[in-house]
Every structure is written in C-alpha cells, then in structure tokens.
C-alpha cells in the first residue's frame, strides 16, 4: 500500500520540486518571504515589548498576557499570505505563459498535477511562517522570558498550517477555473475577505482567552480545506483549462441550460410533478436522510443547552393558558391572510438565506441555518420538562399541528441545498462546473416550486389558524 502511495505521490512531488526551484529563482517571491520572516517578527517583538511595558504601568498585565500569543498567531499568518499569490497563478499563470500544454499532455493524472501544484504553493510560505514563529519566540523569550505552553504552540502551528492549506486550496480552485491571472486576482477577494473575518474572529477568541475554541476552528478549517481540495480535483479539467479563452458571462446559455433541466422535457404539469417525485427518490434520498439526522441532532443540541442557559421557572409557567393568549396576535391581525403570508414569506426567506449560505459552504452553513428553529424547539422542550410539563404535550401543542408539514418541507429544502452545495465538491461527468451548478440549481428550484413552497403555504395556514387553538385545547385550564 505504501509502495502504491509512493508511486502516486512521486510524480506530484516532481512538479512540486520544479516549482519550488522556480520560486527560489524569483526575487519577487523570495524578497517578501524573507522580509516577512525576518523583519516582521522583529517588529512584533518590539510591539510586544512596548505593549507589555505600557500596560504594566496601568496594572493591566492581562492585556500583555493575551497580546503575546495573539502576535504569535499574526507572525505565523503573515508569510502564508504569500502562498495566495503563488497559488493564484499556479495553473492560470502557466496557461498565460503557454507552458501548461506540455504538462497537460504528459501522463500525469489530474490528481497528481493538482497535488503537485498545491504543495508547491504551500511549502515555501509555510516554511517561512515556521521560521518567523521561531524568530518571534526567540525574541520574546530573550526579552521577556515568555515561553508558550506546548498546547498553545501546537495550536498556533496547526492553525497556521491549516489556514495556509485553506487559502491555497481555494486559490488553486480559482486558478484552475479562470482564464487569466487578472481574473484570478479579482476573484481572490472571495478568499481574502473570509480569511480577514476569520483572523478577526481568532483575535477575539485569543483576547478572550478561550484557547479551547481554537481546536474547533482548526477542525472546521481542516474540513473546509478537505472540501476545497476535493472540489478542486473534482472540477479540474484539462479541456477547460486549455480550451477556454474568455471568462464571458453567457446569460442566454445559462438560462437555456437551467430551463431545460428545470422543465425536464415534461409536456404537462402532472408529468413534471411526477418528475419531481422521481428526483426525490433518485437523487435526494441520501441528502434527505442527512438533513433529517441533522435536524434531530439540532433538537438534541437545543435540549442540551436548556440547563446551560436555564430560564427562570416563573417565566415558563404556561399551564392554564386561556383564550386570552389569542388576543395579542389578534390585535396584530395575525389570524388573517396577511398573517399567513407573513409566516409563509418568512419561511421562504429563511430557505433562500440558507441556500445562499449553503452555496458558499458546500451546503454546511445552509443546514446550520435550518437547524436553528429545531435547536430552539429542543431547548423549549427540555425547558418545559424542567417546568414539569410533558415535552410530548408541549410538542403536540406548539409544533406538531403545523410542523407535520413544515418539518418535511425543511428536510426537502435542506436536501436540495445540501445537493447544491455538494455539487462544487463532486466530480461533474462531462460537464463544466457552471453546467453542474446550473443543473443542481434547477433541481433545487424543482423541489422548491413543486413541493417546499406549497407545503410551507399549507403549514403557514395551519400555524395561523390551527396551532393556537390546539395550544389552548391542550394547555388550557
């Protein structure tokens, strides 16, 4: 097995070695790497010393305590930013220089080519980053006697490595899918902005002193890096790389591809509805199961938080609910067509938000959005139990009357979102990434128009006209 791994990996490393040699011959890469490795840690040492001296005058050593590890993380991050530049031009740069075709005509597999380029982009900035961290640590030890704990240094090294991998794997995806370095640089904003937000989040965590949270960040980034690499390899196409000359937005073509898939050649509405049914049984079974399990997990998560964030018992006394509780919503004209449409449109908005988030996160963030109401349900079920109320009765009163339609609608929408997001990480047989995405989008629309939206409308009707009455019937005095 090791032999086979070596035979698969060795050709990729041939690419990596050549690219590394090329990088070390290019002063435009060497200069910033050296500068960021040597100069920047020294500057951070100076900053740390000044900050420690300053805050110690005001009796706030905590700030210094938190600042030194934070600067360690920053020192590690700066050199890996160079990896973005290298990775962005990995494929498209070679295309522009016309040196890609001999490589594409070679017997290297797609995976070997991809891995070789990926490693080449990540190795030198990472080495620079480790060196920078070392320079910084030596500096702070010599000047302030500060030594990080083994756990902290492990976290920082892992975080730096995984951040470099995320940036590089995303940049290589961009590089393999664009037609010019200019276009790749423009698209790099989609990497730089999330990374900047991530660093800000990490800064908050580190100043807050909740270092355990960094493990979750590392885990999440590792999953994202894996998904990005998978997406990159899945959609790597020699033909696209070589054949596509212009990044043109062809709306007409896009609409035609989408519409063809959406209609599916169905001559009548009943045939189309049968097709939607077929779609569920053929392509949506596994996503539906995954979403159902996620929602169940959401209820459990919510229930587990009831003890952590407990409500005062007097606030949750809902026995003897009488028809008076209906009056509040009535004043706001909730029990009307307007109320139905409010509930319905709110749910549709939530599904669209989940879809947008799912598109950029391989479906994951979309599912988390859909889990949120179920987390609340779990929380209130557990809270009700704490208050001596049967969770089953509570569920039957508040959730079941409309949830019997709404929850299946959420599962269906979630499955379509998951499939849409997963399209990016799934090999598209004989299709471009755009075609695959348009087909998945058409399937998403089919499920939404054919099932989810009508089910949500019925659920909204039930939620407005039935659920409050069931609450009174079951929980009324």
């Amino acid at each position, binding site marked *: 097995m090791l032999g086979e791994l070596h035979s698969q990996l060795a*050709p990729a490393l041939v690419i990596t070695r*050549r690219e590394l*040699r090329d990088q070390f011959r290019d002063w435009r890469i060497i200069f910033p790497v050296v500068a960021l490795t040597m100069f920047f840690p020294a500057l951070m040492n100076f900053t740390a010393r000044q900050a420690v001296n300053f805050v110690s005058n005001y009796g706030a050593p905590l700030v210094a305590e938190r600042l030194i590890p934070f600067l360690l993380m920053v020192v590690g991050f700066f050199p890996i930013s160079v990896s973005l530049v290298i990775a962005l031009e990995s494929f498209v740069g070679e295309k522009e*220089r016309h040196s890609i075709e001999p490589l*594409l005509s070679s*017997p290297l597999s797609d995976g070997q080519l991809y891995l070789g380029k990926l490693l080449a982009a990540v190795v030198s900035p990472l080495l620079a980053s480790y060196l920078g961290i070392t320079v910084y640590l030596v500096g702070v030890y010599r000047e302030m006697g500060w030594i990080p704990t083994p756990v902290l240094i492990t976290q920082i090294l892992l975080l730096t490595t995984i951040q470099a991998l995320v940036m590089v794997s995303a940049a290589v995806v961009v590089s393999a899918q664009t037609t010019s370095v200019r276009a790749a640089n423009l698209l790099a904003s989609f990497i730089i902005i999330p990374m900047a937000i991530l660093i800000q989040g990490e800064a908050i965590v580190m100043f807050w002193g909740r270092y355990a949270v960094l493990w979750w960040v590392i885990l999440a980034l590792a999953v994202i890096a894996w998904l990005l690499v998978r997406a990159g390899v899945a959609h790597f196409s020699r033909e696209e790389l070589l*054949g596509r000359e212009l990044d043109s937005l062809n709306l007409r073509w896009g609409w035609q591809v989408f519409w063809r898939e959406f209609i599916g050649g169905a001559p009548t509405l009943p045939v189309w509805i049968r097709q939607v049914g077929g779609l569920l049984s053929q392509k949506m079974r596994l996503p539906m199961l995954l979403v159902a399990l996620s929602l169940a997990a959401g209820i459990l998560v919510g229930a587990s938080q009831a003890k952590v964030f407990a409500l005062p018992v007097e606030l949750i006394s809902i026995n003897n609910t009488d028809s008076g509780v209906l009056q509040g919503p009535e004043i706001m004209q909730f029990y009307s067509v307007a109320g139905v449409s409010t509930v319905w449109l709110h749910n549709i908005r939530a599904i669209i938000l989940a879809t947008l988030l799912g598109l950029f996160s391989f479906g994951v963030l979309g599912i988390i959005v859909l889990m949120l109401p179920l987390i609340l349900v779990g929380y209130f079920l557990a809270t009700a139990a704490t208050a001596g109320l049967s969770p089953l009765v509570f569920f039957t009163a508040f959730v079941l009357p409309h949830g019997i339609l709404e929850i299946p609608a959420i599962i269906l929408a979630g499955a379509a979102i998951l499939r849409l997001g997963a399209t990016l990480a799934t090999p598209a047989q004989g299709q471009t990434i755009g075609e695959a995405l348009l087909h998945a989008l058409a399937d998403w629309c089919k499920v939404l128009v054919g099932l989810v939206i009508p089910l949500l409308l019925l659920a909204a009707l039930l939620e407005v006209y039935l659920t409050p009455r069931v609450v009174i019937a079951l929980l009324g005095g």
Partner: protein
Amino acid sequence: MIVTRDLGKQFDNFWAVDGVNLRVDAGEVLALLGPNGAGKTTTVRMLTSVLRPTRGEALVAGFDVVREAQKVRAAVGVLTEQHGLYGRMPAGDYLDFFGQVYGMDAARRRARTQRLLEDFGLQAERKRRIGEYSKGMRQKLALARALLHDPPVLLLDEPTSAMDPESARLVRDAIRELRSASRAIIICTHNLAEAEELADHIAIIRQGKIIASGPPTELKRSLLGPSEYEVAFGRPLNGFPLFFPHGADITDRGEQWVRFRTASPDLTNPLVLRYLLAQDLAVTGLHEVPRSLEQVYLSAMSSSREQEGNDAG
C-alpha cells in the same frame, strides 16, 4: 498506430473538427495541412487526450484516447504550437524534469538528455537559462522534449517554424530519421515544401473537415489532372507544325519547347519521341513538369469553397 473514425469536436455550437478519418501506420508521416483555425491543433489535442472528442473515436498506439488517456499520453511525444518552456530553467534541468514526469529512471534521463542536446546542437548551451535562448533554439529544445521518452507516436505542430534554414534542415533530417525508426508521425504545418519533402500522406483540412487526403502523387493526379510533360529541342521550332500521337494533348509551346498532357505516359511518351524524331526534330530532353503541393493545396481549397457555395446556393 493512429486511427481516427468520424472524430469530431464541438465547442458550443461550432464544430472545430467534424468527422475526421485518419490512419497513420508505423513508419509513416502524415502532414496535416490547412489554414489557421481549420482544426489541426484541436485534432492534435484530441489525439493527446487533452481534449475529449464530442463524437467518433481515436486510437493512438493502440489505446483509446478517452478510456485510456494516461496510456495515450505516455505513448505520445507532442510538440505544441507554443513551445511551453520554463524560461528560468536551464535546458538540461528542463529535459530532466520532463524525463521524471514521464517516469524515466535517472540513467536513462541523463543518456537521452545528452544525446538529444548533442543531436540538436544544444549541448554547449545546456546550462544557460532557456529564457536566454533564441527562438530557433527554443524550438529545438521543445522538439527534444517531445522525443525525450522515445515515444512511438509523434505529433508535431509546426516543427520548423521560427527556425533558420540550417536548423530547419537539421530538424527535417531528424524527422526523416525518426520515420525510419518505425514511428507514426503527424506534422501540422503551413510549410508545403516541408510537407512534400517529409510526408508519405497528406491530409488537407478545412473548417474541421478533411477535404483531400492521400499520398502526394495521388493527390496531384486527382486534383490537378494528368501529368504534364515538356519536350526540349536543340533548335528553335520557328512555327514548325508538330504532329503528336493520339492521347498526348499539346497544352503550351515556346521557341524551343512544347508541353503536352497525357493520362498514360508509359505508352504515350515513347510514341511522342518516335513521332518527333520522325519529323527530324532535334529533341534534347523529355521530362515531367514539376507540380508543387502548393498547387494541390490551392486547388483543394478552391474546390471546397466552390462546393460550399453550391451547397449554400
């Protein structure tokens, strides 16, 4: 070695290659001729398994270009239209890199690199960066890369473009040598003299379709009609009436020469000579009027355009 059946490649709504049938056996050279954008490069890219055919099939060195893409790529040496060299690398390192990519061991890489650099007169320059090479030197290095792993199939796109006459001769000699070593070679070129010199078969491609193909002599006969011959005389004819046998049609005449066309020169030419000698004319020579591939090419293009006009009409 190379067989294509109804090979086609569609980009959006445009067929770049449309139903191409080719066959190149071992030891043969096929010259693929055609104007820019005719589909030559697309055909080569399909034969190197870089582009996936939209229809039809192609076998290269016995491997299917779709199902056995990696084997095809390992069996093919390709000289791309653009050299595709790494400017910062020295030539020796460059060939060594591609040797590794093709899975060659170190000893073989060394031997092949040295041999090819010597053959192409680049040995003395092996440590110079490729970026400092002239266009011709780059072309030779790119060709050396294509030959490095000693492939049974060679696909050469414009092998002598940008070369000085001496270097071009060197490359042409190299290609001739490679043919004798039982390889199948396809050359895409605009240089018709080169194609005529090197190729056993010619295929002319226009708008993705092969409009004429065959050995050069056969193409000349089919597209330009029967061969033309010229008889030279030692003295001016001064309007002397010439009598030619049946089957030899006079096409042109000058002061001391006359041209005729015949479909069966083996039978007619001895008769022509006998007739002329019988008329007491001082015949000093009889030879076939050379016909260039350029005439064939232009004739094929013109017929194809006419055909297209008729179809449209």
